[in-house]
């Protein structure tokens, strides 16, 4: 059959951010994919050479519009390790609480977008209605809905009293109930299964070879979760990485659904073991040396390389985001699939292109 090249263009109704894929199609079956990135490159890493290293927290938060708290936490952890600062234990627990709230919010956003990708708009609206509760919790406790700006080098800027904690847990119980009502619609509906089961299969050996991270790897059976490294007091929590074995789009959506419930459980654990104490210590001096920092973003493993030379500005800041590591996996998932499955498969790796291109 004759080959046609169809651009899955930068502008597409299903994509949250611009990504260009050149699909070589033979009779509606895809045979080859060539990606092209670079539509929203903003050059944020260059700002690290111009601004003070305290001001970079605000810059780094805006690399991603959905998972911003976790970027700030990774950066602060790297600088604190370089300068040898010991953050108070209460601040570590508070960072966990806010980053798990961020994870719930990000997964709910993705679940809505995923439902929208195969045309199920009412389910999309239901998931985003539940997400509004988490955004209200963010606004009431930190001041802003998504870009919360609550991490600083040396701790956190705000505190949570017991009244606020109780209110947060009430809100999370409501979220759990509402999600439970939507579970059968998302995971057991005949039409949803027809669109997602068996699509975009990534075998376990391929996932390991290509370096897939996050839910994309965990859906293929690799039990890799950066939270097991135990950063920021996570070694005091009790949880297991959520793993599935099928490796298709259905497994990936099931994992993210279960991770919402896992994050609610983590916040409950945090409330029961959080110690009293101060939330912030004064920081003096300048960083010097180089360091690595890894945390678990909703999309996978986030990796920071920071190099400083003792002045106010950093020498080099390099950010490797999980979507960048998942794009080779995406390229191997697509051949053999039909053209109408492309939006579902592209969304199933949770692409955050603004993170990838910074």
């Amino acid at each position, binding site marked *: 059959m004759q080959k046609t090249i169809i651009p899955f263009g930068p502008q597409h109704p299903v994509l949250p951010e611009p990504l260009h894929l050149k699909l070589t199609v033979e009779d509606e079956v895809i045979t080859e994919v060539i990606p092209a990135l670079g539509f929203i490159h903003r050059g944020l890493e260059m700002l690290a050479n111009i*601004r003070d290293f*305290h*001001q*970079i*927290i*605000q*810059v780094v938060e*805006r690399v991603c519009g959905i998972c911003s708290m976790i970027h700030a936490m990774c950066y602060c952890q790297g600088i604190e390790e370089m300068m040898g600062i010991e953050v108070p234990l209460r601040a570590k627990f508070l960072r966990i609480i806010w980053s798990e709230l961020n994870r719930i919010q990000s997964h709910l956003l993705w679940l809505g977008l995923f439902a929208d990708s195969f045309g199920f708009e009412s389910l999309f609206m239901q998931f985003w*209605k539940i997400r509004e509760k988490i955004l*209200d919790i963010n*606004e*009431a*406790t*930190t*001041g*802003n809905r998504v*870009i919360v*700006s609550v991490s600083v080098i040396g701790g956190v*800027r*705000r505190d949570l009293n017991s009244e606020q904690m109780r209110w947060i847990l009430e809100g999370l119980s409501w979220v759990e109930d509402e999600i439970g009502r939507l579970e059968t619609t998302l995971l057991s509906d005949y039409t949803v299964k027809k669109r997602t089961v068996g699509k975009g299969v990534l075998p376990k050996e391929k996932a390991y070879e290509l370096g897939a991270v996050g839910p994309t790897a965990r859906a293929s059976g690799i039990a890799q979760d950066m939270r097991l490294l135990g950063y920021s007091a996570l070694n005091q929590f009790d949880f297991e990485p959520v793993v599935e074995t099928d490796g298709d789009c259905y497994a990936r959506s099931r994992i993210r659904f279960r991770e919402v419930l896992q994050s609610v459980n983590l916040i409950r654990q945090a409330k029961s073991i959080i110690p009293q104490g101060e939330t912030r210590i004064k920081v003096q001096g300048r960083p010097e040396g180089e360091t690595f920092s890894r945390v678990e973003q909703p999309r996978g493993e986030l990796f920071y390389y920071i190099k400083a030379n003792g002045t106010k500005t950093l020498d080099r800041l390099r950010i490797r985001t999980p979507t960048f590591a998942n794009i080779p996996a995406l390229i191997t998932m697509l051949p053999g699939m039909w053209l109408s499955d492309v939006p579902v498969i592209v969304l199933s790796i949770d692409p955050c292109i603004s993170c990838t291109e910074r």
Partner: protein
Amino acid sequence: MFKMTPNVLKNLFSQKATRRYPRVVRSPFESARGALINDIGQCTFCSICALKCPSQCITVDKKAAIWRYDPFACVFCGICVDACTGKCLHQKRECRNPVGERETVLLQGELKQKNEKKP
């Protein structure tokens, strides 16, 4: 039919999930970070806010006692509020209203009088 009917009845008689914005507006939470206000009478023009601002939207002229602020570059992070030594900067709960033209906020404080030398 038995699965759909309870759903339909519940949706008919329950509260709406949306509000009729902009006629009905939810008031923001207490510690929400909104518009930035400077109480110029208390300002000491130490320019710490200008040094710490991540988006460099504040300029301070100590000699002329001028505090200049670009609300369109500001990201409303609140770092200037935390760092302010004269406790004159604070943030309202509500965000700024939309305007038709870009503007810069320029506040003039009292010029300090030099002390007269004793003969």
